């Protein structure tokens, strides 16, 4: 050792909300100070173990793994005491491989069996797994120091003795610290005495929690974030001195200048600790093949069978060659078992009726995966490159990510547990880190800055995932100035910048599952998160230690597809075979070309639906490209427009070299996919597929130096292939431009299948598809409202629940008819629904309310439930109106319960058969429609039989720039005109501003798609208050606010619906039917009699013909005023569809 001191008690930020030092920073600081070794001893865990080990080795620092463990006073299973007295601290360091394996077991057990406030071990466990560990007696919270602080010397000596016995005398050191705290000094002197007495060694440590002294104030704030306190509060946990940093060797030697052996002992311990982790081995479980057939043989046999299944007995030679190439590569890289394991679990899922996705990620490039039915994508058909997935140069395991139906995912994981042993399977940990915005908010709160100020500042940080404060400041001059506006704000920003990125909490990764060839506790420490057992290492570190990781993702779309197929089968007797749909179905493409993407996988957003209309996809290749192109990069780079233009022949398809023609043909000469970049490099410049993959990666990362090198290599290669230098330059330029935005075609292709399948079902089985969609969206009111709106547009009737037809969820009750489920009624639980279904099974069909009450369990279907069912229309099929039913409910309940009681004692119905009585007594007039709708809304959360806005729907569509379901896809601050119904108006008084105490309002706007919160400030409120009445239908003009979780509108003006056409029309479009010549003459006269300023466009269209109609924007002498009279007369002449009003797109129509 060159250094004079080694830090053996060090916390990183994996000591969650206590340590504030990222591992990388600790190691950098240690390196800078010339330290040869460093320990990591996080509180109770090994979260950072592998990360620390690998980075330390990379920096030439010897890593000493360890943990500041919690030890229970007695048994770890005994749960007594409080957070303060139910555990002691002890510092454990790994001396060798056995020690590492023991420490892994100890921290695992502490979480799995010893957790009480903290993950705790106990002395028995330590005794069983103490080999290879060095113990340091610990900080002031240790058992030994606890006794010393209380003055219980004998107990302290007893504790020391017990640890010496457990770990071995030479492996237990008495740990002294000096952070300038009196108690530490007092105890230190006693520890030195004790050491002499028992013959133990002393070791000096610093309880490192952050890297440098100047970080102490930020660390203090970090502690406040963790404990929910404010910095000025006195009654809170705090570190008393700013000494808890990574001091230099000199500083540490100075701390222990009177006790030099304490510093010396650190070197001795560092020398004694030597751990070599093996990153070369893979812990893939061997797949149990039938009859012990060698796995390679088994895989080849399965592939041969799969080939025959997919391609018949004589597969094309190209496929046979590709299969052999892939198999050789898989065998050479020893991934045979991996494929067998994945195939097996997918087979299990398919056998068990759990829908599996057609593929995900680059695994769709593999023919082996295709023939094994791991994926559903024929890679040769779509020119997918195997090397994009697997190649000899790649050391890490290939990634086969699998989508399962959301509902079945847990069952597949359970299967894997059973097959490979529960102790060999676990989920994976992931850490939540303090993001830029959250850092501003948290630090602002701790510093007690005014909430509105903090809120304003936080909102200025773009809501982009992964953005740092430095990036936000760099990109926003205004923010830079704001961040410097006063001392407080400056302090807020500097502190938040120090703390951003630190770990905050641990949780379970949404998809990852790890499978080991032995109990995982032999390889990786485990953590308990609620019911989940997860690894303590994050994904990338698990791969490093050779563990197989599979992403099991839950994908709702698969569940929807499955449910829709079931509905179709129930109604028609034949289940559509989604795996074998023809990919050239004209109706499916027509649906997409019309932009009817609602409910279609990945086509939901407004932008995508517009793109669909522009592109008018008519091949499967177009859908693949769509999914690849609809991302921020290609959209911003203008690639998408270019693609659309080229498809429609409006822009020239230029291919710089004839050899590229087959590669780029399918995308009209635009480089859309990474695979195209690879193929071009391969064909034009002679790159191997591995090199081509390197080029692909470099283009994505855009590192200029790497690109320059590859460019040289590309030009040389192209020269050798006889390509003119100018052409090669041009092609490389194209790759550099487009390639950076290139997307993984394998993934796009697999996902395009899902898009196609959903669109196909929507086109051919619209009722079943929409019912399935609503079934799985039933927890989300806005999504249901949006789906109901789509149903209305499609002509599908969504009917209220019916006790005679509904089950719990949505049901298809006929062509174009969907019934709401009884489960949607507020207050009606699954058991009540079951009771209704059981009753119905007995009587066949309820004929009266009394009969209903006689046959359901009235404890489950009580009065409140009965009332809700009546109000939402669930008894409409009895032929009695809702108000009469409600009036008769109590009587029916009494009758039902007495009949049930009679039946229980063996008597028949004393008062005859209630079914014959018609249930309720005198017939009352029904409620008015508005009241019925109001009740439906109250009980179901929706208007079902109709919608108060249904009548004005065409008007809302014509003038709204967006509907409520689309707002989240738009830009913050965008001007919006939204039509709907005012609801929930709440007026308040302004608190700040120029004139505090002025009236303003918050209100909700509801449209057919959902709702949005709005705010209107005093000046505008005063102007438009007469329109702010619940149920008033208006158009609200304002700006979109996306800075909170839910979109909202800052409204600046309102237009009553009846004046919308007059005030909001920017242009009138008149469709003049071709062939009816007299109409134009009459139309000219009509235009003449309504002069105004609104432009008119005539469209001469043959409605049956494709393509854009001929258009004439009439001369200004024929501009009109779109009054009610004009609109009426035009409709009279041209029909409803002959008139389209276009919204005035000027930003502020009302100003």
């Amino acid at each position, binding site marked *: 050792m060159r250094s004079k001191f080694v830090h053996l008690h060090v916390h990183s930020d994996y000591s969650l909300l206590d340590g504030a030092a990222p591992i990388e920073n600790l190691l950098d600081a240690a390196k800078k100070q010339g330290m040869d070794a460093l320990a990591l001893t996080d509180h109770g865990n090994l979260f950072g173990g592998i990360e620390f080990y690998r980075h330390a080795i990379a920096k030439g620092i010897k890593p000493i793994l360890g943990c500041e463990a919690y030890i229970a006073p007695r048994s770890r299973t005994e749960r007594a005491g409080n957070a303060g007295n139910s555990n002691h601290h002890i510092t454990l360091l790994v001396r060798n491989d056995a020690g590492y394996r023991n420490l892994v077991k100890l921290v695992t057990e502490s979480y799995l069996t010893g957790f009480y406030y903290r993950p705790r071990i106990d002395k028995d466990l330590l005794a069983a797994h103490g080999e290879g560990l060095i113990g340091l007696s610990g900080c002031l919270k240790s058992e030994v120091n606890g006794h010393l602080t209380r003055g219980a010397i004998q107990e302290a000596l007893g504790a020391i003795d017990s640890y010496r016995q457990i770990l071995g005398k030479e492996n237990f050191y008495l740990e002294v610290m000096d952070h300038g705290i009196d108690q530490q000094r007092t105890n230190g002197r006693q520890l030195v005495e004790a050491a002499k007495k028992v013959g133990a060694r002393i070791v000096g440590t610093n309880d490192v929690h952050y890297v440098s002294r100047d970080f102490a104030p930020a660390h203090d704030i970090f502690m406040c974030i963790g404990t929910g306190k404010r910095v000025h509060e006195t009654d809170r946990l705090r570190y008393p001195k700013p000494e808890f940093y990574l001091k230099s060797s000199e500083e540490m030697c100075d701390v222990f200048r009177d006790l030099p052996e304490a510093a010396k002992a650190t070197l001795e311990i560092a020398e004694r600790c030597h751990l070599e982790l093996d990153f070369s081995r893979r812990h893939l479980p061997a797949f149990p093949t039938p009859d012990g057939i060698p796995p390679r043989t088994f895989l080849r046999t399965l592939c041969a069978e799969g080939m025959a299944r997919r391609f018949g007995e004589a597969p094309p030679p190209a496929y046979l060659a590709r299969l052999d190439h892939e198999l050789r590569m898989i065998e050479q890289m020893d991934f045979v078992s991996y494929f067998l394991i994945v195939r097996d679990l997918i087979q299990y899922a398919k056998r068990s009726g759990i829908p599996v996705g057609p593929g995900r990620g680059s695994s769709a490039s593999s023919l082996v995966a295709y023939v094994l039915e791991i994926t559903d994508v024929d890679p040769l058909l779509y020119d997918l490159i195997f090397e994009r997935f697997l190649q000899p140069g790649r050391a890490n395991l290939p990634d086969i990510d699998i989508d399962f139906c959301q509902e079945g995912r847990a069952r597949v994981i359970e299967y894997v547990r059973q097959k490979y042993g529960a102790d060999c399977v676990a989920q994976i940990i992931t850490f939540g880190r303090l993001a830029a915005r959250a850092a501003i908010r948290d630090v602002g709160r701790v510093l007690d800055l005014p909430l509105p100020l903090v809120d304003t500042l936080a909102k200025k940080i773009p809501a982009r995932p992964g953005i740092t404060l430095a990036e936000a400041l760099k990109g926003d001059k205004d923010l830079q100035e704001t961040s410097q506006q006063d001392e407080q704000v400056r302090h807020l920003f500097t502190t938040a910048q120090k703390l951003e990125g630190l770990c905050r909490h641990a949780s379970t990764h949404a998809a990852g599952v790890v499978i080991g060839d032995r109990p995982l506790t032999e390889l990786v420490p485990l953590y308990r998160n609620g019911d989940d057992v997860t690894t303590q290492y994050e994904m990338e570190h698990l791969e490093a230690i050779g563990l197989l990781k599979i992403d099991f993702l839950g994908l709702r779309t698969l569940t929807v597809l499955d449910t829709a197929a079931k509905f179709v089968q129930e109604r028609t007797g034949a289940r559509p075979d989604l795996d074998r749909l023809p990919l050239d179905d004209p109706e499916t493409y027509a649906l997409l070309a019309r932009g009817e993407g609602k409910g279609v996988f990945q086509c939901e957003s407004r932008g995508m639906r517009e793109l669909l209309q522009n592109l008018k996809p008519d091949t499967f290749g177009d859908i693949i490209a769509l999914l690849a192109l609809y991302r921020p990069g290609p959209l911003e780079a203008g690639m998408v427009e270019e693609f659309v233009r080229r498809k429609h022949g409006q822009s020239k398809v230029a291919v710089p070299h004839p050899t590229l023609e087959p590669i780029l043909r399918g995308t009209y000469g635009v480089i859309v996919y990474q695979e195209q970049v690879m193929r071009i490099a391969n064909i034009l410049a002679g790159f191997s597929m591995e090199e081509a993959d390197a080029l692909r990666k470099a283009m994505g990362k855009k590192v200029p130096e790497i690109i320059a090198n590859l460019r040289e290599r590309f030009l040389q290669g192209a020269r050798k292939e006889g390509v003119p230098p100018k052409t090669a330059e041009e092609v490389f330029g194209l790759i550099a431009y487009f390639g950076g935005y290139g997307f993984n075609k394998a993934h796009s292709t697999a996902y395009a299948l899902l898009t196609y399948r959903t669109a196909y079902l929507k086109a051919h089985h619209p009722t079943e598809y929409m019912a399935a969609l609503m079934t799985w969206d039933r927890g989300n009111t806005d999504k249901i409202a949006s789906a109901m709106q789509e149903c209305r547009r499609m002509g599908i009737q969504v009917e209220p629940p019916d006790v005679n037809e509904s089950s719990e969820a949505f049901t298809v009750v006929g062509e174009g008819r969907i019934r709401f489920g009884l489960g949607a009624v507020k207050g009606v639980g699954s058991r009540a629904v079951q009771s209704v279904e059981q009753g119905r099974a007995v009587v066949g069909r309820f004929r009266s309310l009394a009969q209903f009450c006689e046959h359901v369990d009235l404890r489950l279907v009580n009065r409140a439930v009965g009332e809700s069912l009546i109000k939402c229309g669930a008894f409409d099929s009895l032929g009695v109106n809702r108000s009469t039913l409600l009036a008769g409910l109590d009587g029916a309940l009494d009758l039902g319960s007495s009949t049930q009681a009679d039946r229980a004692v063996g008597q028949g119905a004393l008062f005859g058969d209630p079914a014959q009585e018609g249930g309720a007594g005198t017939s009352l007039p029904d409620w008015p429609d508005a009241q019925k709708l109001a009740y439906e809304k109250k009980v179901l959360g929706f208007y079902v039989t109709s919608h108060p806005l249904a009548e004005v729907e065409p008007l809302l569509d014509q003038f709204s720039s967006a509907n409520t379901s689309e707002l989240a896809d738009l830009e913050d601050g965008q001007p919006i005109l939204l039509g709907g119904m005012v609801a929930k108006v709440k007026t308040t008084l302004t608190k700040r501003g120029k004139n505090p105490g002025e009236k303003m309002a918050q209100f909700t706007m509801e449209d057919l798609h959902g709702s949005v919160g709005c705010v209107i400030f005093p000046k505008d409120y005063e102007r438009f208050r007469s329109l702010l009445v619940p149920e008033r239908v208006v158009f609200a003009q304002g700006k979109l606010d996306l800075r909170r979780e839910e979109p909202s509108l800052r409204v600046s003006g309102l237009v009553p619906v009846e004046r919308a056409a007059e005030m909001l029309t920017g242009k009138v479009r008149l469709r003049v039917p071709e062939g009816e010549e007299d109409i134009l*003459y009459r*139309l000219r006269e009509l235009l003449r009699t309504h002069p105004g300023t609104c432009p008119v466009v005539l469209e*001469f269209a043959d409605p049956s013909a494709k393509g854009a109609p*001929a258009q*004439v924007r009439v*001369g200004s002498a024929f501009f009109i005023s779109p009054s009610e009279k004009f609109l009426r007369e035009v409709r009279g002449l041209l029909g409803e569809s002959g008139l389209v009003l276009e919204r005035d797109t000027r930003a502020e129509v009302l100003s």
Partner: protein
Amino acid sequence: MTDLPHVAAAGEGPVRPGLDGRIRHLVSIGALVALGDRHAMRTYMRVAMEAGIGTEAVRELLLQAVPYCGWPRALEGFESLGAVLEGMAGVRTGAHAGPEAGGGLSGEAYFRTVYGAKSDEVLSRMKGHHPALADWVLRHAYGEVLARPGLPPRVRECIAVGMLLVLGTQSTFLSHLRGAIAFGTTPDQLREVLSQVTLHIPEERARWAFALLDLLPEATPAAGGGVP
């Protein structure tokens, strides 16, 4: 005699003010070729040539009829012309080619003048119908026929307007109405072109054509200027 009205119309039309009489003659002949009325066609041809319209101008018009009316109609026209010339043997016909010398424009330039900003869209739409269609229109119809020097584009467009109005193909009529304006024909002159054809078409269509011309912004004075 049956050809009296035609003689009267053919003789009367060209003398109205507002449009060059020679254009009137050609528009009428074009309309009758489109209509396929051989008898009237011959009468008009004879009257036109007696009024000094050159044989070459009529032959150019008949070539133009190939893309607009189809070669069977054009052929009928040529046969009629042959018969007229035979009957007029010895009579001196007009020596000049037509109302004025023309040409000098490429087929594509001609096309783009007619369709203006919409040219690419129109081409793309045609390609969508059939790849050969766009090629045929640009190369043959515009390149080999309309761009010929025998008649100036302004006159050809007036003839086209007449033919298309007879055929009743609304969107191409609209396009060439604009094409005529783009080549310098005034809306008032176009009204005369339409008047020249109204004799040969149903009343509704005539009203439709005039209404459409009125509504075109090119034909309408700025707001407040009143409607003719």
